[in-house]
């Protein structure tokens, strides 16, 4: 009996240690993850500071980190801003909580980068009742009453899709393949996401003008590398003659490239398959440089300056446009990527 008791004691101690370890982990890292949470005690906003609450999705990718950093760099205390930053850790409920916190603190502006499009009506209504203007950035929200937010600032994803289509048309023209039948497959993003809808429909618009383009199939790769790899494997098993792969983000492109290489096919202008990708993260641009990705359409993470401009306009009482798009560019294998990368921070 004695032995048994001691054993239980040992096990309990083990359990306790494990839990402490977990707790320790989370405490230790919190500071590291959240770029700059509100400094509780050191500084309070001055009387005339513009207080801005930002609810960010998370920090899941380089793109997102760059996006966050741009806010930090733009809304500095020297310029008279006081920033409260909340990381949503990929959860809508965290973002809703953050918004409620901003409302309680009575900030001057709320900037929301929504993780999903739906489910924002209630909390946006609360913000409106409190008289706090909300600026939606990056992804879109779908709410019944569009007056719940002041404006949306972000990428024109449909234009990105259109640009990709037009690039392909120009390219085929220049290679004398204008009337040749071109087989295309699309690796779509998560169905229903802003990026998926925009990029798919933008490209489809251009495709309609080209009778020789044949879209074999749309299949979702969920924006992840693993899923795209699997779907690309399936595409290659099913169709013998794929000319172009449209991959709606860079992560999926990495998976697709893997699958294509394993099947023994060649990428690039003289190869069997051409890939067109979106996002233009650094790793993908290196592949553009190598010629494995034909063209990559940027999704610009530096939204902050346009948000600042909007806030300044609102401060002066000027009207702002409901939807504002940031400038975006693209990269293709013919450009001098190396030089371009030097001047690019991400």
């Amino acid at each position, binding site marked *: 009996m004695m032995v048994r008791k001691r054993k*239980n004691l040992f*096990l309990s101690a*083990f*359990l306790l240690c*494990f839990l402490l370890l*977990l707790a320790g*982990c*989370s405490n230790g*890292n919190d500071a*590291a*993850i959240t770029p700059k949470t509100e400094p509780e005690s050191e500084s309070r906003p001055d009387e005339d500071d513009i207080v801005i609450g930002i609810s960010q999705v*998370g*920090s*899941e*990718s*380089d793109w997102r*980190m760059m996006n966050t950093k741009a806010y930090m760099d733009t809304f500095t205390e020297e310029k008279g801003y006081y920033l409260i930053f909340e990381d949503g*850790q*990929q959860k809508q409920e965290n973002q809703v909580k953050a918004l409620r916190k901003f409302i309680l603190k009575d900030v001057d502006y709320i900037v929301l980068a929504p993780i999903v499009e739906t489910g924002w009506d209630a909390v946006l209504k609360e913000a409106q009742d409190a008289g706090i203007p909300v600026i939606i950035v990056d992804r879109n929200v779908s709410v019944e009453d569009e007056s719940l937010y002041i404006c949306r600032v972000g990428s024109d994803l449909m234009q990105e899709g259109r640009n990709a289509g037009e690039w392909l048309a120009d390219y085929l023209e220049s290679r004398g393949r204008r009337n040749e039948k071109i087989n295309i497959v699309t690796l779509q993003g998560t*169905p*229903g996401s802003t990026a998926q809808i925009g990029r798919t429909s933008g490209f489809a618009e251009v495709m309609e003008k080209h009778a020789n383009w044949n879209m074999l*199939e*749309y*299949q*979702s790769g*969920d924006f*992840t*590398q*693993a*899923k795209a*790899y*699997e*779907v690309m*494997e*399936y595409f290659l*098993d*099913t169709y013998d003659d794929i000319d172009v792969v449209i991959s709606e983000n860079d*992560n999926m492109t*990495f*998976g697709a490239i893997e699958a294509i290489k*394993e*099947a*023994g096919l060649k990428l690039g202008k003289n190869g069997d398959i051409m890939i067109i990708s979106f996002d233009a993260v650094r*790793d993908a641009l290196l592949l553009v440089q190598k010629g494995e990705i034909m063209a990559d359409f940027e999704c610009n993470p530096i939204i902050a300056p346009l948000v600042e401009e909007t806030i300044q306009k609102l401060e002066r009482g000027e009207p702002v446009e409901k939807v504002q798009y940031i400038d975006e560019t693209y990269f293709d294998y013919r450009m001098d990527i190396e030089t371009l990368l030097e001047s690019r921070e991400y």
Partner: protein
Amino acid sequence: MDSVKKITKMKLFLPIFSMILVMMINVIYDIASGNAPFGFFSISINNGILYGRLIDILNRGSEVAILAIGMTLVVSASAGTDISVGSVMSLSGGLCCMLLAGYGVTNVSNYAVPLWVGMLAGIAIACVCGLFNGFLVAYMNIQPMVATLILWSAGRAIGLLLCNSNIVYVRVPSFQFFGAYCGIIPTPIIIAAVCVAIASVVLKSTALGTYIQSVGINKRASRISGFNSAKIILLCYVICGLCAGIAGLVATCRIYSADTNNIGLNMELDAILAVALGGNSLGGGKFNLAGSIIGAYTIQAITTTLYALGVSSAQAPVFKAIVVILIVVIQSQPVKDYFKKLSAKKAVAKEVA
């Protein structure tokens, strides 16, 4: 007639039957759409590696097959399921990549620590998770689902913390090897085969399998007859954790990165389903490992079939659910009883005639 009866009475008949059913859908579809009728089964060597739908299924099904080993034992011993395996996969992959890349680094082409250290740490943390689950279930008498719910939610989150909420890329060929090809065969297939082989040898050559089943059938009676029931249950959970760790590393090596948000997502459900499809009772007791493994590949076959049928991935879960319902209903006791009655009636009719 007798031989047919013999076959249908076999333990593995229904799992294999379901597998064949899924494959038949492909054959029918191929014929209907005018392709080669057995295109689904064709295997070729392209670019020095094996190629074909069957290979895809075996390759993609590896993780679930590995998970199914551990899940079968857990279900058998504790009459409950370990719902934390998907999260533990992600945690083990996350820790491994974090160590290999160094904390806070998101993209490396050189190891920060030797490969085996990272791999071992990944597997070790998964075993610790198993130990934690097992302790709660076996010694604290917490219901398995509730006990494993803790790591189901925390495991992935710890993984995210370890990776600083980033996707950590480890671009080293020897790391990618475990998710790519070993000669002409995909490495995950080999890893899964080795795991299954080891598990079946251990269960066959030792009395462990019998112990587990007897604990599952009646915990108290087993304890009275001299087994340490709690220890056996604990062991099952540790094995389940180990399997989750291995599966996690395979999934991580496939994409040579720790995508902690997505690795093993919802895979616990596939693993539990594999056990159920394998003809095992989720109420514990007797188990059939081979059935679970076949179940695991059946699930993957369904997924691959849905691609082939051109079902968009947004709607795929609906079709998957329909197929699963059919398979589970076929295996359920009332349906079995009905067929038994039917054949008995036939036999009587024959005798009368």
